[in-house]
């Protein structure tokens, strides 16, 4: 598998095919006596912005502390949850439980649902 071509930036779907962002970064474990291996997928937070410039990552983190669900750390999904890596990356998780949808839920509850016709967030 070519990690940059086949995994990085691909769309992530949870077990119910709900979009939960993109593979913004990969965490690799490099042991002294073992082969390097991918341990986690990173979603959101400063991860994609670090790839553009650290200044963007700092600015993003500052803004995230001021407003929204106040989540500054990227979401980390263990690689063991990857079910398939094809056109999209399918994960054996429920998106809502991972934190990847924190912004989506916060915006829905605090802004969209307060506007008439915005609809109600589905109860679990």
């Amino acid at each position: 598998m070519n990690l940059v071509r086949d995994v990085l930036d691909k769309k992530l779907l949870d077990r119910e095919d709900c979009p939960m962002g993109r593979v913004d970064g990969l965490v690799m474990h490099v042991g002294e006596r073992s082969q390097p291996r991918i341990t986690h997928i990173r979603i959101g937070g400063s991860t994609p912005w670090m790839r553009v410039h650290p200044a963007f990552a700092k600015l993003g983190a500052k803004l995230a502390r001021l407003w929204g669900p106040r989540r500054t750390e990227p979401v980390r999904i263990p690689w063991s949850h990857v079910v398939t890596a094809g056109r999209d990356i399918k994960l054996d998780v429920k998106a809502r439980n991972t934190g990847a949808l924190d912004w989506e839920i916060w915006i829905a509850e605090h802004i969209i649902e307060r506007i008439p016709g915005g609809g109600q967030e589905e109860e679990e």
Partner: protein
Amino acid sequence: MKKILQISLGIVTSVGGFLEIGSVMTAAQAGAAFGYQLLWAILLGTLCLIFLVEMSGRLAAVSKHTIVEAMRERFGFPFFFIVLIGMVLVAFMVLVAELGGIGLSFQILTGIGFPWWAAPVSLLVWLLMWKGTFGLIENGASLLGLVTICFIVAAIKLRPDWSSAASGLVPTMPHMDKAHYGFIAVSILGASISPYLMYFYSSGAIEDKWDESYIPINRLIAGLGMTFGGVLSMAVLVTAALALRPRGIQVDAFDQAALLTTTALPKWGFYLFAMSMLFACFGAALEISLAIAYFFAQGFGWNWSEDLEPSKDARFSLVYTIIILLAAIPLVAGIDPVKVTMVSMALTAATLPLAIVPFLFLMNDPIYMGKHRNGWLSNSVVAIVILISFVLAVISIPLQIIGG
């Protein structure tokens, strides 16, 4: 029967996407200043757009990915971010121009200044996006846009000299006003080859759940729809050459453009022009707002669909809400939509390489396209469009300053 209906609706939608304030104003200025001499620019823009739109639809039908999704995956986040900045800034300016065009249409109908219309018009566009479905936006607004056929009626009624008009399809340089000529040619190409149309079209193919069986339909829609749109633009230019040029009228303001149809159709021409611009700009404003929201949602991997209720794709809905709100502000402040139109068309031309270069790679990628990769003809056309887009990118800003 269902497929025939789909093709018909697709063609109508393409017309709705093609004709908007940018294409009408640039074609009217071209005809008023240089007669038929700039018809070649519309022909060239239309031919480029036919190929690009066909490829956008084919990419979506085969790979089940929109252009933006495939671009982010193939070129990575940093490249996506650069394109996002360029495309969204230009598309935002075009949105201001389209909302302004709706306001100006109401202004000439009612006599009430366009800044007063900016807020209600923006609210109406937002409300349709908030409550409407993709089908309503795609087909409803475009069907209303068919009133723009009045430009063809006006052109025919003015009895053009067809052989002179045909000679305008071959590029020639004027004896004077070369910078202005160049600026209008660039603006026409910017108005014709609109990247937002490609993003909207490929997203629409995913919304409509296209698969590989839609490839022939896509080819027909792109070919016939864009040709129809190009013919409408040419009709505007021909009408301007016959109705405005002999009277020495340069189209610097929107109400001057209304004279396009009043000369040929004295009784209904004024109202037909106002309604044409109103519906064409309304359809374009909806498509651009959606295209910007699609760009963000697809690039970042959010949930998106115009058919979902807003709370189910909250970030997508928030993007178009903010964009429409921001676009209304300069109009309320009284910024001239016609000037915004001309600047935004030149800037569209300047940013074209960002939108088109990735296409060449995506359309030849076996992972996305499989056996439906570009052939030599499509690749040659994209290469030519890329060449044109780089030339436009270099000359558009200097021409804007010298000839705009």
